[in-house]
């Protein structure tokens, strides 16, 4: 059996005295598209922040491609091949689209490959070629989300993590973002997707973890989740959002 690409074991994290994660464990295998679902405050973003090294976990371990990455610096973790498309897109507003993409390639820059990479990016996101020399801050929300994804891909990540890519976007734009994520997966990317929009996410992912109150409440294939969990209540954040019907 091959080792999972990413293994998170018993992760605990806090913001000051407030414990946000109470022992989260999850795995992502190469080539998979895995979702991390849950309502606001369930601990999804905290999990991603811990994996990327922005937040130092209190306890637990994170292993990526056989290397322990717990408590390492974010810039070191990126170099291992783990890129995050952060929540809220976090485009460098005063930098041009070109400069945003160039910084995305910071860890992987090779002159010849860079040109080819840009070409590929423009095929996926034609709008970015149009806006190439405009400041990122002048792009619309959807365009910024595309730029954020493109910027992360410039690093040639082995695992791409997306934090709420559909947040704040129009329904039409949300559609195209989900189509894009599916396409990236078909192109061979391994993706960990954090979403509040569980219904939409389950349409495209292989497996999913359902987080509630800082714990994994349910884990299984997308089909299992659709069948066994009242998705509407997860989506709208009901109290009994996640009955745990399958033992973990």
């Amino acid at each position, binding site marked *: 059996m091959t080792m999972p690409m990413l293994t998170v074991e018993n992760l605990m994290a806090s913001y000051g005295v407030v414990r946000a994660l109470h022992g989260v464990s999850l795995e992502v295998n190469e080539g998979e598209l895995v979702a991390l679902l849950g309502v606001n405050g369930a601990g999804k973003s905290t999990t991603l922040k811990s994996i990327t090294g922005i937040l130092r976990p209190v306890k637990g371990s994170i292993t990526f491609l056989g290397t322990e990455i717990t408590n390492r610096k974010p810039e070191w973790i990126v170099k291992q091949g783990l*890129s995050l498309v952060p929540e809220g897109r976090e485009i*460098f507003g005063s930098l041009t689209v070109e*400069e945003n993409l160039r910084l995305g390639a910071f860890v992987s820059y090779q002159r010849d490959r860079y040109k080819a990479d840009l070409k590929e990016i423009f095929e996926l996101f034609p709008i970015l070629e149009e806006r190439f020399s405009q400041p990122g801050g002048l792009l619309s929300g959807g365009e910024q989300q595309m730029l954020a994804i493109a910027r992360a891909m410039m690093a040639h990540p082995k695992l791409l993590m997306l934090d709420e890519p559909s947040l704040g976007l129009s329904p039409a734009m949300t559609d195209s973002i989900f189509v894009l994520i599916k396409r990236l997966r078909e192109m061979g990317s391994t993706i960990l997707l954090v979403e509040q929009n569980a219904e939409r996410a389950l349409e495209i992912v292989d497996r999913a973890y359902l987080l509630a109150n800082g714990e994994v409440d349910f884990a299984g294939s997308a089909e299992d989740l659709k069948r066994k969990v009242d998705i509407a209540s997860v989506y709208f954040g009901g109290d009994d959002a996640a009955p745990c019907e399958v033992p973990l």
Partner: protein
Amino acid sequence: MIDLEFLINTLSLGSLYALLALGLVLVYGILKLVNFAYGEYIMIAGYGLYFSATVLHLPWWATMLFGVAAAVLTSYLTELAAFRPVRNKSANALIVTSFAVSIFLQNAVLILVSPRARAVQLPPIFSQTVNIAGATTPVRNLLIIGTTITVLILLSLLMKKTVLGMAMRAAADKFTTTRLMGVPANLVISAAFIISGLLAGIASIFWIGRSASVDPVTGAAPLLIAFIATVMGGMHSPTGAVVGGFVYGLLFNVLSITLPASMISYRDAFMFVIVVLFLLFRPEGIIKGGYTEERVG
């Protein structure tokens, strides 16, 4: 009133103040720290000029390189030894640290050298005057204008055309996200301190050039000028700092000309009134920073 002499005086004073302000804003942009030890880099550069001339007997151009190098090294070392350990603490911790560094450096010089001023020799060209179209002006005024233009061009090339420059601009905008691109935090912060020290060193040559002496509190006045210039021009961009520097130079010279002789010694008080007005009516400064984050859609 607006004659060539006034113009050259204003441009040269503005150039010097722009360099001073720029060095302060580069560190502020990335670390959100108003580095109150910044004046000490200028002071150390002055002692660098003094020692390299009197002890090492270097030629004048080498004393200048030595002075600038001393400021760069001091700036970098204070970052390593003082600011880096408290970087993840509060903004208050950082600012208090900068006061500590300032007091430490001033007193180190006071104890190790002397509390009294030392004469700094600069090449004769600094004290000569030239006649341009009927206006008499010190040559150093023209030198500072030329130097500042060169520095501004090189710095904007660095910021726009190099990946380090892009990373520094990105870090000033969103620091954590910049690290998520794989840019080492230490790299951009050290670079900011090194460039800040470089600007302090270059400005120091011209600052010291006016009085031809250096003492342990030499740095206090240029620090204040840099701070006021950034308040007026805008803390959030290098452009703001440069604009603030020139505006400061202009206001100062206008006051010098328009105030009656009996009030000229209150010139600084008038300057502070203008600063207070800025803080009241345009606290973000002349140049607002950044773009609006996103449009709807």
